[in-house]
């Protein structure tokens, strides 16, 4: 009774065109599903095997257990490696962010001789293969009879993180409307007060982002660390050496934990941003 009778005066879309439209729209969607699945396979695997009741060798599925999550430091050396990575990461982030932000302000705010050379110098470490960065730094340390270890690792991390901090903060500075600082001076703020009350708060998100980037680069670094850490074990180093005989499930727990933590931070950051602009 409710059947729609086609109105003959409305022109019909040919079936071929309809299919083409459906195909085009859904092809992209299908591709995205495949691509994201591919991206997440190792993550899902790592997460799944964090529940494996595997003992020392986490290669074959033996059974589901929550014990690994309840006792993430159960396997020997896992938590000390994690602690080292966090300590090194924190220190490297601190110094790289301070030094890098200063450079970013210098290059981004002032015209001076040697500006383009400075840009080049910042770009070079990013373009150099990690193995060369690590090996050359180790060579230097050896010349000065400094043994690889904790502080050489921190130094190495600061070295390769500075460039990323500079690029990130510089981008944020570039998007700052110079008239805001002029308005501040017009309203009786001297140079220092202008920086403190207008410039810094507006650049702060960029600095925070740079710090986050530096920390993740440092935490995840293997090659440069491998050359310069000597007997100090970081988390990536631990995984590398344990890879042959099987990584303890606790490492999976920590890896998954970091994943969720980082995801939470990023999503929280997005939510805060969206709320700010509402």
């Amino acid at each position: 009774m409710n059947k729609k009778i086609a109105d003959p005066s409305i022109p019909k879309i040919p079936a071929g065109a309809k299919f083409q439209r459906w195909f085009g729209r859904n092809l992209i969607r299908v591709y995205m599903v495949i691509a994201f699945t591919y991206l997440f396979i190792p993550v899902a695997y790592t997460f799944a095997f964090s529940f494996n009741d595997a003992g020392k060798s986490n290669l074959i599925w033996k059974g589901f257990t929550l014990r690994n999550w309840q006792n993430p430091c159960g396997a020997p050396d896992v938590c000390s490696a994690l602690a080292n990575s966090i300590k090194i990461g924190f220190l490297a982030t601190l110094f790289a962010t301070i030094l890098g932000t200063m450079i970013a302000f210098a290059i981004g705010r002032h015209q001076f001789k040697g500006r383009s050379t400075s840009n080049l110098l910042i770009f070079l470490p990013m373009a150099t293969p990690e193995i060369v960065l690590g090996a050359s730094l180790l060579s230097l340390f050896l010349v000065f009879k400094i043994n690889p270890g904790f502080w050489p690792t921190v130094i190495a991390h600061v070295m390769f993180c500075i460039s990323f901090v500079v690029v990130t903060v510089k981008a944020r500075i570039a998007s700052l409307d110079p008239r805001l600082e002029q308005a501040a001076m017009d309203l009786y703020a001297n140079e220092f007060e202008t920086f403190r009350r207008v410039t810094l708060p507006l650049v702060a998100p960029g600095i925070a982002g740079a710090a986050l980037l530096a920390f993740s680069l440092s935490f995840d670094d293997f090659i440069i660390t491998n050359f310069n850490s000597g007997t100090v074990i970081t988390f990536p180093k631990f995984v590398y050496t344990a890879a042959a005989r099987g990584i303890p499930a606790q490492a999976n727990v920590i890896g998954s934990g970091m994943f969720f933590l980082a995801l939470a931070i990023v999503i929280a950051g997005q939510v805060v941003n969206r709320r700010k602009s509402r």
Partner: protein
Amino acid sequence: MSFDASSARGDLILTRITKSYGDFKAVDDLSLTIPKGSFFALLGPSGCGKTTTLRMIAGLEEPTVGSIHLGETDITTTKPYQRPINTVFQNYALFPHLTIFENIAFGLRRRGVKDVDAEVNKVLNLVELPHLAGRKPTQLSGGQQQRIALARAIVNRPALLLLDEPLGALDLKLRRQMQIELKWIQKEVGLTFVHVTHDQEEAMTMADTIAVMNEGQIEQMGSPADLYDNPKTAFVANFLGQSNLIKGTISGNDGDSLVADLYGQKVSLPKSRSHATDNSIYAGIRPEKFRISLLNTPVSGNVLSGGHIEDVSYIGVSTQYQVAMPWGQELIVFEQNDDGVAPFKKGDAVNISWEPIFTFALRGDEDVTAGSEVNPEVLDEE
């Protein structure tokens, strides 16, 4: 030599200011006095140096040569935060990370003023936006932002308030409304306003005195009526409204008037409105002063005959005619449509007449196209 000039008061005096960027002179040997308490406009096309002049007054740029005085105090080398001068920026420049209240309070806090709350609320009431105190600038409309930018400047009771094309981003109706409000606020608060704009209607609506600028220099300064009725250069004649400029020669003298010969036809003009330096002139008449009449109608005053209507444009309030004259020039005539439909059609043979006192004369060697180009700032973004 910077010092705190925040107690300086008086007229603003610019003496022989030049601002050069390499070989290019943005402002060229400019001297100007802005009387205390007036509403002053700097009017000119983009690139004429008006914004640069404003920024030098604010202290955001330093003059290459020359001095700036506020009353008796020489403020040329003082920093912006040492001058009792505040600016309303073109894009408002409200601090996005501060609330409206804190934006307005910013200058008060830097100066250590005690009762911030009372002052901020007073000025929020003045601009009729007290309910927005807790919001952030991005949550406000353009018109609201503009008023807050104004409030932020006014709350500091500066000796001078500078406005850098503050109404440019607003739509037409809102702009007209703000023009009237700004005028009212200026009279109410009693501050000296210096308003920079490329919109001649805006300048004429709001200002007591207008300085027309072109290529770094002031072409003419005076009240809106002075500039409109008695322009001294082709630039001013063309930039403010429209003008008909007809080449001719002065052929005689008649008491207070001069007699001029325009392509064989004689007209008279008042001596007080002639800026010619010799006998070669351009006679200038505003389009609304012309009267069109058909050939057998009686006319009085100055008459130019032999015209043919080339184009008729009906604009509701008025009708714009283009009349081709025998010497090849097309004159523009505005006729008010106060008695209904336009009586003239394309092709009609007509005479043009007007009252002699409405004639002005410019030097014969003037560039008649000066000031008449399409205003590039309409297309520009700043």
